[in-house]
Structures are given as structure tokens and as C-alpha cells.
């Protein structure tokens, strides 16, 4: 007799990836013995990530859950989510174990990965190496799919993603697109964020994002995947921090100051918060020389995506702390007259629209699908990028930050 645990969204190899958002799962008996229902307890058995269980969709899951499974094998539903604060450190290190209640008999187990975006400063060497390896493969010495990401963030496309309220949703979609491509190469990878209001000396090392030489070109350790990094036909990454890498860049708003934009607590409005596009976002860019310093070249540097992961994390944090996750809530977003910046608008380039005023080409095609979720679909809308953890219900976007919980 054993218990089959099923969680939807498994990839082709049966691997499941969770974030903090509760996902509906089932457990059922296989090869039953006897005629009476069997009582089981779901619990954590892994050494890395941990999960929480509940019978309803809640943010108050528990580390164990008792279920009664019918003898006829009818599945019993429950909810499972990553335990906030306990993400995985390696693939499949979170184990859901089903024990016969009151015994140590293990009737079933399921490996899952609690995969969330983490602070780049505190990644383990293994996590760091997997990330740069996947990213190096995506760049492929200039011949890989990273070309599309580079082509999405060029001057003719600036108006699609900057200077208006769609700045944050567009970049959220952009990062998620890239992250899914990285996960197609290595599913253990999640995009780390560079927290630019704190010192991050572990980021600016030869093993990670490199150390600048005196000309302002970044150098990496031997064998580092970024040694073959190429964009626009040219070799290498131009970047030199204009700050000591043992400290944070000076002059940028702190996280607390950023979250205070748009007003406090019950009055917080997105329109005010979106001013973070100038400071800290713009100033984070200009705290370097090199590619990051200008709009037209910024996306040539892989650090761009970690910088923007932090921008997105700040938005996610603001959404969580001020409870602004619903697109229907007026203060969760702001109106615009510009196409591509309104809630129901689809976003370039994923929508393939190339008539004026959009750019004349749309690189990359439609948005990549994910086994973990059906969202946001092939042509994401601005509004679909707002409630990324699905606080309001429905499928999430299947990414989360290590310090932004799911809370109803």
C-alpha cells in the first residue's frame, strides 16, 4: 500500500517547483490493504527547502497535515506551498513525506523544489555557479537566445517600457521571460537580485559578476562562462563601479525610502511609487560606467537583470506591505494614455504588434510557457503582471522573492 502525491505543473521529468503561493495538490491511496480509510500525515522530510500544508487556500499553512484517504483511491485535495523563509538550495531538496499517522511507516514521498529569487549577495557558490552557467549558455558567445533579450531593450523600443506607468509591469514580464529561458537550460535556476542599497561584495568577484580592470572592462576567473560573453558582435562587458564594492552605491534611496514613495500605508498609490524609476532605479544604473550607464546599452550587461530583479522585488514588497496586489484596486496601478501602459493592453514585443507607434519588429516571439502555471499566457497584458503571487486567486506567475511572502 502506498500513497501517491500529485502536484500539478510538473515538468517532463516529473519535477515540481513551488513558490510561496499555495497550490492545490492531491493524495490518494494506491494498492490499498483492508477496507477502512487510511489516516496519513504529510510532513517535511528534506534537508533543504520546506513546505507548508493546508486544507484551504491560506497563508497559514502548517508543517504537517493529517488527511484521511478513502480506500477506493479517491484523491483527497490539499494545498501546499513553500514555507516562507525556507527555500530550496538545490534541486529537489524539499521532500513531502506521507506517513501512516501514528507510525513511522512511510507510504509515499514527493520531491519538490521551493524555487524563489534570492539575494545575490548570499547565494551559495553552487547556486551562483548554476546561475552564471545557465546565463552563459543563454548568451552562447553571442549566438544564443540572449540576442532577443538584447534586442528588446534598445532605443527604438524605449517608449514601450520607460517613462510611464508600464515601466514596472513591462520589466517584470521581461525578467520572467528571461528567467523561464534560464530555467529551460537549468530548472534549478532563479534570477537573483542585486540589492543596490546594501553592500554586495560577493557579487563583484571574478567568480560571479566580475572585477573591472583599469579600462573599465570586467574580468572573470578562468573557465567562467562570461569569458565568452558577447553582445552586438563585441566581446566582453564594459562596467566599472563608481563606488567601492565593499559598500553600497551612494546617493540611492534605501528600500525603506523607496517603499515610502507614493505615500504611507492605507494611502499608498502606485503613481507615486512608480517614481522610483528615476531614483533608485536610474541612479543604480549610473552608479557604474559602461553598458549599464545608458538605456540603449544597459541590457548588454548580465548585471542589468539582477539590478532589475531588485527593482521588481521593491515593487513586489511595496505591493505586499501596502496590500496593492489587485489590478482592480485603483491605487494598485495608475492610468495612462500611452498604449502598452494600460491594464488591458498587451505588451510589445510579445504581442507581435509592429505597426506605429510600436517598433517595426518584435523580437523573441510570444511569451514562453511554463509547466508550473498557465500565466501570463502568450501575449501578456499589463494587468496580468500585477498580482504575481495570485493573492486574488487564480494561477500565479510562478516566481517569488525570498523576502516577500504570500499573504491573503
Amino acid at each position, binding site marked *: 500500500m502506498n500513497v501517491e502525491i500529485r502536484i500539478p505543473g510538473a515538468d517532463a521529468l516529473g519535477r515540481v517547483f513551488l513558490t510561496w503561493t499555495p497550490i492545490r495538490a492531491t493524495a490518494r491511496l494506491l494498492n490499498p490493504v483492508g477496507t477502512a480509510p487510511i489516516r496519513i500525515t504529510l510532513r517535511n522530510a528534506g534537508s533543504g527547502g520546506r513546505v507548508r500544508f493546508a486544507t484551504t487556500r491560506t*497563508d*497559514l499553512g502548517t508543517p504537517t497535515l493529517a488527511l484521511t484517504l478513502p480506500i477506493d483511491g479517491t484523491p483527497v485535495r490539499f494545498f501546499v506551498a513553500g*514555507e*516562507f*523563509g*525556507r527555500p530550496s538550495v538545490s534541486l529537489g531538496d524539499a521532500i513531502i513525506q506521507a506517513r501512516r499517522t501514528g507510525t513511522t511507516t512511510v507510504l509515499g514521498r514527493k520531491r519538490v523544489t521551493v524555487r524563489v529569487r534570492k539575494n545575490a549577495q548570499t547565494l551559495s557558490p553552487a547556486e551562483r*555557479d548554476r546561475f552564471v552557467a545557465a546565463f*552563459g*549558455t543563454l*548568451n*552562447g*558567445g*553571442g*549566438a*544564443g537566445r540572449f540576442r532577443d533579450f538584447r534586442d528588446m531593450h534598445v532605443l527604438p523600443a*524605449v*517608449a514601450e517600457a*520607460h*517613462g*510611464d506607468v508600464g515601466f514596472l509591469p513591462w520589466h517584470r514580464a521581461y525578467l520572467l521571460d528571461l528567467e523561464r529561458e534560464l530555467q529551460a537550460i537549468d530548472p534549478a535556476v532563479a534570477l537573483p537580485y542585486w540589492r543596490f542599497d546594501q553592500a554586495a561584495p560577493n557579487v563583484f568577484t571574478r567568480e560571479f559578476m566580475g572585477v573591472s*580592470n*583599469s*579600462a*573599465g*572592462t570586467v574580468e572573470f*576567473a*578562468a*573557465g567562467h*562562462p562570461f*569569458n*565568452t560573453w*558577447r553582445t552586438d*558582435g*563585441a*566581446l*566582453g562587458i564594459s562596467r566599472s563601479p563608481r563606488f567601492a564594492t565593499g559598500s553600497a552605491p551612494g546617493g540611492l534611496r534605501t528600500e*525603506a*525610502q523607496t517603499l*515610502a*514613495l507614493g505615500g*504611507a500605508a492605507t494611502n499608498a498609490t502606485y503613481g507615486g511609487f512608480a*517614481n*522610483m*524609476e*528615476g*531614483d533608485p*532605479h*536610474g*541612479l543604480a*544604473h*549610473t552608479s557604474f560606467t*559602461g553598458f549599464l*550607464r*545608458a538605456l*540603449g*546599452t544597459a541590457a548588454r550587461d548580465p548585471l542589468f537583470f539582477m539590478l532589475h530583479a531588485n527593482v521588481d522585488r521593491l515593487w513586489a514588497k511595496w505591493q505586499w*506591505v501596502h496590500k496593492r496586489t489587485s489590478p482592480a484596486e485603483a491605487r494598485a496601478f495608475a492610468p495612462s494614455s500611452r498604449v502598452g501602459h494600460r491594464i488591458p493592453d498587451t505588451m510589445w514585443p510579445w504581442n507581435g504588434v509592429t505597426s506605429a507607434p510600436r517598433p517595426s519588429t518584435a523580437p523573441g516571439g510570444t511569451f514562453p510557457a511554463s509547466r508550473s502555471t498557465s500565466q501570463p499566457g502568450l501575449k501578456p497584458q499589463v494587468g496580468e503582471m500585477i498580482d504575481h503571487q495570485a493573492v486574488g486567486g487564480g494561477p500565479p506567475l510562478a516566481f517569488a522573492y525570498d523576502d516577500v*511572502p*504570500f*499573504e491573503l
Partner: protein
Amino acid sequence: MDVAKYRERYEAQLAKAATSAEESAAAPLGEQNLEEQVPDLLATLQNREEPVASRTAALEALAALDFLGPRFAPFRARYKEALRDVATDQPQELRAQALELLAIDKDPYAQELLVQGLQEPTDALVPEAQAIQLLGYDDHAEVVPLVREVYERATGVAREEALRVLATDPESEQLFTRLLKDKSEKRSIRQLSASGLQSLNPEAFDETARKIVADDDDYNDIRATALAALAHGREARETPVDPKLVETVQKVGESTRSRSIRSAARRFLQSTEQ
């Protein structure tokens, strides 16, 4: 972690920060009316009576505002003119930043100034290596012949930057091949040459790289670089797995004491399994 308690702690942090002296009272960059803010910043930048620190701060603010895209567009022409104005100014840091921002934009004036500085070092506005790097932003400029000359005479970082620029020119393939094979050459040059050759002629690179990987008498870091480049190149080009190469890499990975080679070998072998 208890989410409710986490919220409590976090809200307390935010409240504390709101009352602390650290909070900036100034409106964030870009929140103010740009029609007032930008002209003031431009005036500060171009005012040679202002302290260098003020002018540099103004330039940084303008560069950050440029990220606002369409909102900054009305000022972009004036901004570029201001950059050209200060590109030859005395404070080196200021002109270096201005030249960089112009060079990123492939500005012809900035390119002329940088070329002049390479041809006549007494006219140089930025160090040689930096000038080459800035010119490298435009692979359609006609600087390659000049950079080739600089490469022949330069040393150190300037020579490396020159090689990076030459990596855009298919005529450099023979140079990169020669440098990559030359064990007496500086290792950073050989690593650059590996990347350069792979980009210009992946098949020729593969042939040379295989020999380097198998050569126990070559430097570990060069062998690791070659191996990593082989892995990424193969994946990007989706070329079939070569069993002989796999065998070679397995042997090298097992016999080496070098961590970087072992790691690169592992990565290569993983890539062949996918």
C-alpha cells in the same frame, strides 16, 4: 516563518526609517517637474565656475533621468550638446564621463576626439586603454586599422582592449589563433584570444581548443577557459556531441588536480547529457 510577525517587524522598520534623520526630504529624481529640474542640471554641468563635484553630480542626475525614456526625450538634444561641450573640459573625471556617454551613442565628435588622442598622445583626453574601449562601442567606426597599430605598440590593459576591438574584425582570426597557441604569451591575452577566435571562427576555435584541453603541459586556466568555451559554443550552435572529445574531457577531468579544469570538465560533460 510567521508571516504576520514578519509583517509586524517589517512595518516597524519602515516606521522607524520614516522618522529617522536618514530619510531624504528631497523628492525623488524625476518626480519633480523635469522642465524645471533639467535646465538647472544642464546649467550646473556646463558652468565652469561650479565645483567639480557639483558638475559631476549634475551629470549623474542627467544620465539617470535619461532612463525615463520618453519623459526625458524633450531634453535629449540639449543634453547631448552639453556633453559635447564638456567633453574637452579640464576635470578629467567629468570629461571622461561625458566622452563615455557620447561614445555609447556612437557620437562622431566624441570618436574624433578619442582618435585624435590615440594618434597624438599629448592630445589624449582619457587614458589609452579607455579610449580604445570607448571606440569599441562602435564596430562600424573606421578605427580598426588604428587600433591594430596601437595593439602592436601597446602593453598591459591597452593591448587587451585593443584585442577586444580587433575581435570584431574577421581579418584578426590568424592573430587570435597565433596568440591562443603561444604558451609564452600572457595568459589574459590567450584567454581573450580564445573568446575572439571562437566568435570569429567557431570551427577553427574548436580545433585549437581541443588540443589545448588535452595538453597537460598547458596552463590550467587556459585549458579551463578553452573547455568552458567549447561547452558554451557547442550548446549555442547545437552541434552534435563528439564522442572522442567527450572521452578526452572525461580523462582530463579525472586526471587533473586543477579545480577550475574539473569544474569546466563537469560543466562540459553535463552539457553533452542534455
